[in-house]
């Protein structure tokens, strides 16, 4: 990689004022008017007429020879980008290319947590904007993404750790997010079933609660954005793997796919997990990214047990309960490069130990399913949403394991960047050139060791 994207560097200093899409009025109302497909009346009439009145949520589009914009990757971020390109910028001659079926990657593999409890100003601004989009997303798409603001509670196990959380909470509140410190007596009422002694080794001394955080139905997010994009005329092309890039001199002019050549003025890549593989096809052999596997788990369904998201600060564990009753939880990366979408036993062993330290009452609960997803681990733990690295190309990657909560803002910012050929102020700090300018956004201060972010 060559350092420096001059155009982007110059723009970093200026701040474009912005208004959230819903508050600006036009997008939300227009979307609602155009997309009233699902209503109580529709459900009633379709019930009486044998459910023959429904349309598929998206067409099985055939690739056209050329588009204004091609988006590689039909996951959450790619679909959100297509939706906002059409809804916010009026660019509807767009194709989303997905190598498998829609939403078969990390949008359907995460633990569904949405939060904006970050310390660094660039991160809070970005994730808090995402949170605001989440709060109106079901309305915007007229599709129930089941966003449930049940809160996220980070448990602290030493006074020093609690001080650190209080600092982060203050940073969040200063940037317009919400945060609240809870002490053990409040935590005991908030999360019954929690062993405040942490089985004595990790006693709970307090916690940082973000009340507006929560969970969302991850598949519905993909389906909702897909339907929204489709209704604006975007072609969603599944089973269409990119096998190469078309070049005219240095400029990218389209892609070769398993379903033929497709040309486009602008080619956007949103394939987190496979970014290195796809960019290798364009001749870019090295990126500030390693691919790692992260595992996730669901237990058998039980009665309502926990109505928030709880995280363990003595190691790494996050747990919530799905609407079906299964406990959904995850832990650290396995910690070695992998594209295998499956992990190994040591992490599972650690995770179960942590789970039982917090919730001893769960020791008879059986594990129902576990799976793995491939993460783009960037060198500072923060994402990349940028113009380039080649002419005619736009890159959205490096989501580490925080991509799901970012889906709306990622698509919103990436669409802006593609449409206007400049990053929005919110994603300007997340350029690829930051690694060469010393402007890293390293939330955990771990340095270029991706497995630790």
């Amino acid at each position, binding site marked *: *990689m*060559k*350092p420096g994207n001059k155009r982007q560097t110059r723009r970093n200093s200026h701040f474009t004022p912005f208004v959230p899409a819903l508050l600006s009025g036009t997008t939300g109302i227009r979307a609602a008017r155009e997309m009233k497909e699902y209503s109580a009346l529709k459900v009633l009439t379709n019930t009486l007429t044998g459910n023959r009145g429904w349309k598929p949520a998206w067409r099985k589009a055939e690739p056209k020879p050329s588009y204004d914009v091609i988006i590689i990757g039909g996951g959450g971020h790619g679909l959100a980008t297509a939706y906002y390109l059409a809804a916010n910028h009026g660019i509807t001659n767009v194709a989303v290319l997905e190598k498998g079926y829609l939403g078969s990657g990390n949008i359907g593999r995460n633990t569904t947590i949405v939060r904006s409890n970050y310390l660094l100003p660039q991160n809070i601004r970005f994730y808090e904007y995402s949170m605001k989009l989440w709060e109106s997303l079901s309305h915007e798409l007229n599709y129930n993404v089941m966003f449930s603001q049940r809160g996220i509670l980070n448990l602290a196990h030493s006074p020093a750790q609690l001080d650190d959380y209080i600092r982060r909470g203050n940073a969040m509140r200063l940037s317009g997010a919400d945060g609240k410190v809870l002490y053990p007596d409040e935590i005991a009422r908030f999360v019954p079933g929690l062993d405040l002694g942490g089985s004595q080794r990790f006693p709970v001394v307090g916690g940082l609660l973000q009340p507006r955080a929560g969970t969302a139905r991850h598949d519905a997010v993909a389906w909702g954005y897909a339907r929204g994009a489709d209704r604006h005329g975007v072609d969603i092309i599944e089973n269409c793997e990119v096998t190469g890039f078309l070049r005219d001199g240095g400029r990218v002019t389209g892609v070769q796919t398993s379903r033929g050549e497709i040309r486009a003025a602008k080619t956007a890549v949103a394939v987190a997990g*496979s970014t*290195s*593989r796809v960019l290798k096809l364009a001749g870019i*052999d*090295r*990126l*500030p*990214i*390693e*691919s790692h596997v992260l595992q996730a788990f669901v237990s058998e369904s039980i009665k309502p047990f926990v109505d928030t998201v709880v995280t363990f600060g003595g190691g790494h564990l996050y747990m919530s309960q799905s609407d079906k009753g299964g406990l959904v939880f995850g832990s650290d990366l396995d*910690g*070695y*490069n*992998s*594209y*295998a979408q499956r992990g*190994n*036993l*040591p992490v599972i*062993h650690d995770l179960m130990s942590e789970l039982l330290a917090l919730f001893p009452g769960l020791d008879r609960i059986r594990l129902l399913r576990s799976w793995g997803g491939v993460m783009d681990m960037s*060198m500072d733990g923060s994402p990349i949403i940028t113009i380039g690295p080649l002419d005619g190309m736009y890159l959205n990657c490096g989501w580490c394991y925080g991509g799901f909560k970012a889906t709306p803002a990622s698509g919103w910012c990436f669409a802006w960047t593609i449409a206007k050929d400049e990053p929005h102020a919110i994603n300007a700090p997340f350029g690829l050139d930051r*690694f*060469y300018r010393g402007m890293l956004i390293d939330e955990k201060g771990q340095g*270029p*060791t991706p*497995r630790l972010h």
Partner: protein
Amino acid sequence: MRINCPHCGLRDLAEFTYQGDASRALPELSAQTGSWNAHVYDRENPAGLHREHWQHSGGCRAHLRIERDTLSHAVSEAVMVRPSPPVKNQPIRSRGRK
């Protein structure tokens, strides 16, 4: 996943610590800043055979160089990063007698 440690034989993954890509070479000291940037931040990140360093931290503590397939996790080679220096087997007591 298990790794065949040259000292200890086939041992479980839990005993090992990952230390990253072993294919990176330090640039010359006189190299430009860009080369150092690339060395610190850029990775090839292949889907397939990957050369990497591990330490048998829960065993003999040796540093190993391993070739592993990132698509299947199959380890095809595990060798010492550096061959051990030759060990002198002379008993300590015999030293002073000559």
